[in-house]
């Protein structure tokens, strides 16, 4: 049995309401960093709260380190949790906050002080012990919240959108900090987020969720490059979709407005007819020598820094094309006629 075993969790809020979480099962190995990724209301936070013991599931079980915990109250589970924001106790200093778990456990003061100092060192705020939460920035508060959760040496660390209330820059900084600490302590971690970039950059594995169900579980590379459902494909990363007619379901050949296109995989429903051809913006090339070629007119050119995103109208659809920025890059003019190309292995057919 895996270190954390979630089996068949189902949770309804009130009678007649749809399932917030529907038959959720997942095995997490010790030391793994797992992200629950999905839009708001997809059940990711509810699942996390079931693991933490704040919600009682209507069905299913949770095993942590071999022990069934469904009937264990939240304050006995030894699971650390970091909340979205503002969950530090406002009437306590940073040191008191971090030491709280040890204090209520009746640990001796000397041990508590040593542990607090160690934790503050870990989050790189060693001199902030005497401050009150309102004297800290949002990013510092979340670091302290992390230290507080880690001080009791939890078996499992749960993070519920810990960065979503912070500025973009702090978010990226703290993101790598969380990953560093997690790897240093080899801590089994579940991270809930609606931010795909966070999930992709942090996780060993990502669980994509929608409407209370798991859409796909996989490494960031798998999730991004080989999405198995239409939801995953469109939620993670940007995706171009071409309405096509499948001409050969076995090889994945199809036509778009009369132009023959090749894809590398067979059609998902194994039959000819209408389908959609999916392709990531970064796989499309202006000009180029790809097997598939489409011509269109440039609608707009957006300079995003490291990437330039070009919108091109091809027939009835608009496609996004991403190009890496470089100094010598020649940007296409708006209204210019261009040819787009992409290789067969870069695209796939979806229902």
């Amino acid at each position: 049995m895996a270190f954390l075993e979630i089996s068949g969790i189902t949770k309804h809020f009130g009678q007649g309401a749809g399932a917030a979480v529907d038959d959720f099962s997942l095995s997490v190995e010790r030391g793994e960093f797992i992200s629950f990724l999905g839009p708001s209301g997809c059940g990711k936070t509810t699942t996390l709260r079931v693991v933490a013991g704040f919600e009682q599931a209507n069905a299913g079980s949770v095993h942590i380190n071999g022990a069934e915990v469904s009937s264990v109250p939240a304050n006995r589970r030894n699971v650390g949790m970091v909340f979205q924001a503002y969950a530090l106790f406002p009437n306590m200093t940073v040191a008191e906050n971090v030491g709280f778990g040890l204090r209520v456990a009746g640990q001796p003061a000397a041990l508590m002080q040593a542990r607090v100092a160690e934790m503050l060192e870990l989050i790189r705020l060693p001199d902030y012990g005497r401050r009150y939460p309102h004297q800290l920035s949002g990013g510092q508060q979340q670091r302290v919240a992390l230290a507080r959760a880690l001080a009791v040496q939890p078996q499992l660390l749960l993070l519920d959108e810990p960065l979503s209330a912070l500025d973009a820059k702090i978010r990226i900084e703290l993101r790598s900090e969380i990953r560093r600490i997690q790897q240093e302590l080899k801590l089994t971690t579940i991270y809930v987020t609606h931010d795909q970039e966070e999930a992709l950059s942090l996780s060993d594995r990502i669980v994509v969720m929608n409407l209370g169900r798991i859409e796909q579980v996989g490494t960031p590379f798998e999730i991004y490059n080989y999405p198995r459902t239409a939801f995953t494909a469109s939620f993670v990363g940007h995706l171009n979709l071409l309405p096509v007619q499948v001409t050969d379901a076995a090889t994945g050949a199809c036509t778009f407005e009369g132009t023959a296109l090749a894809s590398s995989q067979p059609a998902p429903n194994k039959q000819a007819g209408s389908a959609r051809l999916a392709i990531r913006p970064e796989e499309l090339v202006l000009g180029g020598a790809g097997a598939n070629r489409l011509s269109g007119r440039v609608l707009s050119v957006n300079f995003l820094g490291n990437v330039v995103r070009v919108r091109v109208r091809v027939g009835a659809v608009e496609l996004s094309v991403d190009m890496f920025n470089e100094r010598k890059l020649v940007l296409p003019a708006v209204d210019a006629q261009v040819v787009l190309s992409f290789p067969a292995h870069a695209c796939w057919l979806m229902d």
Partner: protein
Amino acid sequence: MPPLLHQVFRPVPFCTYYRMAEIADTRLARLQPRAGFKLAAVWTYLGVLPFFVFIIAFLIFPATNLFAGAFQDAKGNFTLVNIQGLFSPYILKAYRTSLEVSLITSLSGGVLGFFVAYAITMGAAPRWVRSMLLTFSGLAANFGGVPLAFAFIATMGRTGFVTAILKSICYSAADASKVCPLDPYEAGFSLYSTVGLAVTYTYFQFPLMVLVITPAIEGLKREWREAAENLGASAWQYWWHIGFPVLLPSILGATLLLFGSAFGAYATAQALTGGSILLVTIVIGQQIRGDVLGDTNLGYALAFGMVVVMAVCIALYTVLDRRTSRWLRR
């Protein structure tokens, strides 16, 4: 939706009101175009003029007069006789009764109000109960004076209907005598006593507490309770270490407000007991109403004494507030 009374009416230290006014003021100033600045300033001052006129005419001027009067005899000469008079047994007893009633009702009303507020915020009470209770509190907290006294006389007085109902619940004892165990007046209760007064005051004290403390309890974040639980704390440990300390400044402020409202009450007690219970406010009434035994200047001194008591309370509150809200200061 217009803001509920409890949202407008919060026990905030005066300095906070001042700070809010200050912030609003600088914002207003920023909004004004430079050229129209002078005119805007004139309008602003014109707006606050009635306030200052009012304060000067009805607070500062009478208070100064009153303080001066406390140190004057009937002819206007300086004297300490009035202040000395405050220490006569009769008046000391009045202060004691006033303090007693105020303390008892601010504590009982405070505790009761706190639990009601807790029940409607943290408890599972349905929404309509909550809004009904808040509306009731808004009314009851301002329902004092003569109508309240008569309402209580009509219900809990010697011939009040609640008294009558309780009186009528009787049974026959073994020796065929009639026993009425619930008769409040047989049991020693009297509406016209200090206890009766305390019961009557509680009618407006506890709703006042509900109004004042509900927003504070609502301010307790669910995350705090869950974080505490997550770190292994029991519900009791959460309240001891977080919930109660966070609420303490608000509870202190609210209790002081309750104390003040009971300490200054006059009409309720006068109408209820006809002046038979000596509260400071009733003695002041006796002194300055101008009957034969009245001594206006002694009345002034009594009022001066009340101001001193309130000042001491506020000073005490300030000290406690500093201690309990250390974590709020920047």
